[in-house]
């Protein structure tokens, strides 16, 4: 049985028809084309699918999409404003807080939810908080460094970003469902 729901993602409203059992992760990726949120374990352990709902970080692989109607959903795609990266995004580049980058959207969303609530956490608080986000590449040192750089205001105000990777995107289309965007 399909159901009409309106999801507010990164400030944009999407009116969609979905099965009641569809997970937020699937809807973000397959229906809305927001593929920045990743799937790593599907059981709520790795944090790759972390998004922020009404200010709290959650695993979108365990969250029913229909239950998010009327709530404020933030994903990695919503962080940069007018091409200006969020300080956490900048810090991850500056301090090398990723290698393959598959865990990075989740890491950044988890860190953002912490800093939104507590802008001055201690290093131990960051470690505890971020331990729900697995990374197999970095050994976490540079992730911690990046988050602490934001906490301690140590990101370079004049940092010049290398522009986007030149590699062309492989054609991207919605497959399973069509998208109806409102507003």
């Amino acid at each position, binding site marked *: 049985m399909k159901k009409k729901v309106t999801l507010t993602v990164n400030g944009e409203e999407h009116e969609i028809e979905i099965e009641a059992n569809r997970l937020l992760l699937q809807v973000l*990726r397959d229906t809305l*084309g*927001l*593929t*920045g*949120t*990743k*799937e*790593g*374990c*599907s*059981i709520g*352990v790795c944090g790759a699918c972390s998004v922020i709902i009404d200010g709290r970080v959650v695993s979108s692989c365990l969250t029913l999409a229909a239950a998010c109607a009327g709530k404020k959903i933030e*994903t*990695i795609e919503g*962080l940069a404003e007018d091409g200006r*990266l969020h300080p956490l*995004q900048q810090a*991850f*580049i*500056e*301090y*090398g807080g*990723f*290698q*393959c*980058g*598959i865990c*990075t959207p989740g890491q*950044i969303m988890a860190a953002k939810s912490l800093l939104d609530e507590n802008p001055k956490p201690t290093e131990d608080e960051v*470690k*505890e908080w*971020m*331990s*729900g*986000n*697995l990374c*197999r*590449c*970095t*050994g*976490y*040192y*540079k*992730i*911690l460094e990046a988050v602490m750089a934001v906490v301690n205001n140590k990101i370079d105000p004049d940092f010049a*970003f*290398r*522009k*986007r*990777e*030149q*590699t062309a995107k*492989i*054609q*991207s*289309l*919605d*497959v*399973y469902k069509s998208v109806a965007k409102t507003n």
Partner: protein
Amino acid sequence: MAKAEKFSVVGQRVQRIEGFDKVTGDSQFIADIYLPNMLVGKILRSPFPHARIRGIDTSKAEKLRGVRAVVTAEDTIKRPWGAFFADQYILSVGKTRYVGEEVAAVAAVDPDIAEEAIDLIEVDWEPLPGVFDAEEAMQDGAPLVHDDKANNVAMTMDIERGNIVQAFAESDVVVEDTFVSMPQWHCSIETIGSVAEYAPNGKYTIYMNTQTLFNARYRIATALGVPETDVRIIQSAVGGGFGGKSCDDNNALVAAVLARKAGKPVKLINTREEEFLAGCRPRVFMKINVRLGFKKDGRIRAKHIKVIADNGAYSAKAPAITGVAAMRHDTCYKYSDVKTEAVLVYTNKIPTGAFRGFGNPSAEWAVEQAIDLGAHELGIDPIEIARINAAETGYVSPHGNRVNSCELKQCLDMAEKMMDWKSKRAGKQPNTGLGLACTVHVSGKRHFGDYDGSSATIKLNEDGKALILSGEGECGQGVHTAMCQIAAEELGVPVEDVEISRADTDLTTFCLGAFASRLTYVSGNAVKNAAANVKQQLFEQASEMLEANAEDLVSHDGRIFVRGAEGKSVSVSDVARARLFRHNGAPIVGSGSFDADSVLPDSTRFGNESGAYNYGVQAAQVHVDPETGQVKILYFVIASDCGTVIYPLGAEGQVEGGLSQGIGYALTEGLQIDEGKPLNPNFSDYRIPSMRDMPPLQHAFADSYEPTGPFGAKGLGELNMDPTAAVISNAIFDAVGVRIKTLPITPEKILKALREKAALEKAKT
């Protein structure tokens, strides 16, 4: 040898070239590829470790609405394939040999329908007795995993250099013990996946998150029975490789067969459970017996190692991995007389394969503990034993490996200082201990035929910016950034002026791919040569413009200057344009190749496996809680010799990430398996380290220069995975006097050992 040159781009803390895409979620990983009319694939896997397939009925699945293709072995040419031995099929032919093996597959319009269709496939199974232990598998009468492999033996090795009997006779102290290592999964946060398309003209296009595109193309073409150029592999962003994505599994092949039958693109992504059962091939199980003979002064006189390796149901790269476990360490210390015996065995378990370290972590787990045993027996500080025996520049191992640069002794000094080894050792606290191990790795490995090379093309655009075309896949480690730096350094342009293509077997020249810590060294040299070729063309053109000899020109900061008359210059973009926009104009395109000066090992495995050897030292201080058996790593230090560091952020990341995998291997990561059925194929029961598990760390790079490397660089990626388990075990022994010989080192094992030790001491008094 000290650093010979000063660099302007190499060694600078440049940012990762894909950085922007990685932090915005824009990087396109395999699951992020959606093609028009794309179907979703799903695999029916064997629930049995060993079973005959009497028949498969797919009719119900085919009739399900939304199903576009159902395939079994009948849809394939049933040609076995494999990295070294052709022993596995795309889909089971006649029988299955492990839990999770691919038996049939479907493609459907959505994942739920695909799942439902899988349940509708009926297989007539006849379960067969299985064999799950390597030593049992070798017994006469054990069930045969492959009918043509007597006693389930895949391969044996027996090599002696020097005179091992005499060498032990001349030893003052002999130690011997047996160490068991476990399979370890790569646990890349992105699982293996592919999106395959088939065009009616016979061409397959497969998007893959593979780290070895051209090897993948070769194997896929072989198994499909088509020419290599009928298969095009395009690399997506890769969410972690570590050896697991080097195409030893069937994912892309099943996707290709489905795409051909369905006539539509098919996406097939492993679930996490599938990844554990039958995706990336985990580290080979090994039981290693080590016997070492020492002279009184600490010199190693003799080494005899016996390896029993269990490669599970199919061999993949295990024959080479077993060889590495048996021999690689002989390049770490100055050995003279060594004997190595190894046997590789089939069982009805998950096929194993390449994982960061490639046999070396299993071997160093054993050998570096045996060295520690020797140090205690001799009453010599382990760091001194390492110093006495450490390889040096110019060393030639008993197997022929020639070491052009080696800063192992410098690494020992660095580690000693960072750990404050001497004073911590002198002021030893109860239940606290120090451990150390040395490590060696290669920079490329000559084992896929007599070639360990790479190639690259660089095209110079009319705006003066260079684009590297390379088939060497970026698998997340950041090597593309290092390659851009190398090209920029050689061309004399800022790193921002160099870009690099996605790897694509149709558009880029032949490259072996990311394995054996080879890319910075091997592909770095190829890129450097291609850049030199571009520079030569630039200088020819510029010499006309500057009215000077090409030999007198130099380039830096994106401009070409006349040496000694730096006022006279022209920009790279002006030169590129001048060369192009004129009568008979032509763009500047350069190409370069490199093949390491190594020697393909002969039938006795004598040769020189790599062009360069990387060294390192790790040391840990641990505390063991005698009440709970919990190990806490108080401090960890690492010194690495990777020659010149090209890309510091990336190099540091390799060290730190290697350590985290090493800690997981040592302490938490272990397969639980019952009659061939893995019991913990998920991230909550198979525990990889999280941020809070990482110890305080200090690490540094040796002042080192590899004469054959690009700007003095050599490999690094695997080095710091290799010794960690032994380091931690040695430190635990120093702390509480018990040695755990089976991985992982759990608190339960420590407690049991402590109790046994206490009982023994009590019995003595």
